């Protein structure tokens, strides 16, 4: 484990700061690693070697000039390809945006660049972040570094696989129903969904605007917290951005790493006691709960009776918002245009463009959303789902009167073989059973490795009250101190 690409972001930053290594050397080592393994992993849709080396050189020059740099300056990072990056292709893994180069950076990318982070490239995902396996990418799937015949989770499978394959020490994801946390769980990495509104959505290619939340992906809890601190904060360009200070997530992660959870109350959700989950996942989860108890935490069972309706409510709300958001792909302002032969009308060209540019899952969700919003069905579907969302929020509020955080497995099953769940779309949706309630409520959630089942990683999810992101980092770091990080075998 002596290669540069095995270092965590914290270790890289220390080397950079002490002059033991330059940002350029660190960046080149990761580009070499990508060149060596990404033909097998396919975590990246686009590698920007030139841009990365230029950014690294700039960091080295600033440091040489004696400038005081942030704690992640010179650390390489991979960015999910649903985030707009100026001049660098941003496809959302869709054919409809093939070759599109945005004329601006997302706010989180601006913050990343200002912090001196070095963007290596853009990572694969399920098309428009709709999926749980990265198999719905229009550019081919990503493969799980733990077992290349299995999925890396989704939608952010590219970002998670890049971490697990040591192609990048940090990555950016987006989480609408679990797209940061579930890939983290099945790749043995750490992924955090901040409080909704805690990180800016400006420059995210919109899927479901009331749920989309960008956040950090890393191999350790401290690294995730450091990136969280860079990405988060109020943005006047996002009208749902919360105008409040960011909780001290880095301090909380460091405090948690001491391994003392005395006085912390963990809530076990009765309705998530294992129905539908693999026995091996539940066994690893229960071992982790025992480990947390040994650190001084108290475990209390709580009831959240409406959680069982979270999945149905989500699969009405998210498709409804997506059917509206994806109307912007009309073959006029950017991306693909099909069938414009001079004879066809705008509407025909639009329909042919969307038919050709969208993959099957995106089409399904647009049609489900169109159905749920149509007159005659609105009250029974979309309207009712919004009421259920209120009840789920109330379940969280009352649970957090009794406990500090809620814990559960992140996802009911370990990484499944490619192709296992594509024939029946609803089977794919079940991967997000435990992550979706957190999105509907809007609070923060993190997945942290908690053990193995059948030799594959299992993740534990910690959910905290809105704006108490620091609390989940403390518990996550404590668990990490007890269990350690998970390391896959070398890629063969």
């Amino acid at each position, binding site marked *: 484990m002596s290669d540069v690409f095995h270092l965590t972001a914290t270790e890289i930053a220390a080397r950079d700061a002490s002059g033991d290594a330059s940002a350029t050397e660190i960046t080149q080592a990761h580009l070499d690693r990508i060149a060596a393994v990404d033909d097998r992993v396919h975590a990246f849709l686009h590698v920007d070697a030139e841009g990365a080396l230029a950014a690294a050189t700039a960091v080295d020059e600033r440091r040489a000039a004696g400038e005081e740099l942030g704690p992640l300056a010179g650390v390489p990072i991979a960015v999910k390809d649903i985030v707009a990056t100026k001049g660098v292709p941003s496809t959302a893994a869709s054919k409809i945006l093939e070759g599109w180069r945005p004329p601006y950076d997302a706010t989180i990318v601006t913050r990343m660049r200002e912090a001196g982070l070095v963007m290596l490239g853009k990572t694969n995902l399920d098309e428009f972040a709709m999926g749980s396996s990265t198999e719905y990418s229009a550019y081919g799937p990503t493969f799980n570094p733990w077992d290349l015949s299995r999925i890396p989770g989704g939608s952010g499978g590219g970002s998670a696989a890049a971490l697990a394959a040591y192609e990048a020490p940090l990555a950016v994801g987006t989480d609408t129903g679990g797209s940061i946390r579930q890939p983290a769980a099945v790749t043995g990495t750490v992924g955090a969904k901040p409080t909704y509104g805690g990180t800016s959505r400006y420059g995210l290619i919109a899927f479901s605007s009331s749920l989309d939340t960008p956040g950090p992906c890393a191999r350790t809890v401290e690294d995730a917290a450091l990136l969280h601190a860079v990405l988060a904060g109020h943005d006047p360009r996002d009208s749902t951005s919360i105008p409040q200070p960011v909780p001290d997530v880095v301090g909380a992660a460091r405090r948690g790493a001491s391994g003392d959870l005395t006085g912390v109350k963990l809530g076990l959700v009765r309705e998530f006691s294992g129905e539908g989950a693999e026995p091996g996942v539940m066994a690893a989860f229960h071992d982790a709960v025992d480990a947390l108890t040994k650190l001084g935490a108290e475990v209390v069972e709580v009831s959240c009776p409406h959680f069982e309706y979270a999945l*149905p409510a989500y699969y009405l709300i998210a498709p409804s918002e997506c059917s509206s958001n994806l109307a912007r792909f009309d073959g006029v302002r950017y991306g693909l245009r099909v069938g414009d032969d001079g004879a066809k009308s705008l509407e025909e060209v639009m329909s042919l463009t969307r038919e050709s540019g969208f993959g099957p899952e995106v089409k399904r969700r647009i049609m489900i959303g169109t159905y749920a919003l149509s007159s005659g069905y609105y009250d029974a579907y979309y309207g009712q789902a919004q*009421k259920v969302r209120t009840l789920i929020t109330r379940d969280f509020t009352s649970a957090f009167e009794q406990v500090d955080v809620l814990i559960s497995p992140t996802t009911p099953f370990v990484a499944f073989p490619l192709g296992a769940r594509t024939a029946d779309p609803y089977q794919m949706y079940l991967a997000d059973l435990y992550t979706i309630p957190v999105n509907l409520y809007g609070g923060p959630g993190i997945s942290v490795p908690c053990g193995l089942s059948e030799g594959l990683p299992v993740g534990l999810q910690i959910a905290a009250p*809105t704006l108490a992101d620091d609390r989940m980092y403390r518990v996550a770091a404590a668990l990490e101190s007890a269990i350690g990080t998970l390391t896959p075998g070398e890629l063969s």
Partner: protein
Amino acid sequence: MAAISREEVAHLARLSRLAVTDQEIDLFAGQLDVILQAVARVGEVVAEDIPPTSHSVPLTNVLRDDVVQPCLTPEEALAGAPDAEEGRFRVPRILEEEA
């Protein structure tokens, strides 16, 4: 009983501006039926008096200061367009031609 018919799927595709094929309609009809029957479970919850939640952050009327800020140039805005002409997006025919 199926929640959605083949004809309804074809209608949804038209509303969604998707020129789907007949084979796709057959495939989607079955799949959408499974999904709609599953999500219809929200109807089991008694919620007449419950207010809907559209958003988890209770912010309203968020406005920015009315000051001029830098924005894209016309060239930047048109750079990603499939077709542009004279500084504008060029679109296919919108109106039927007069006979």
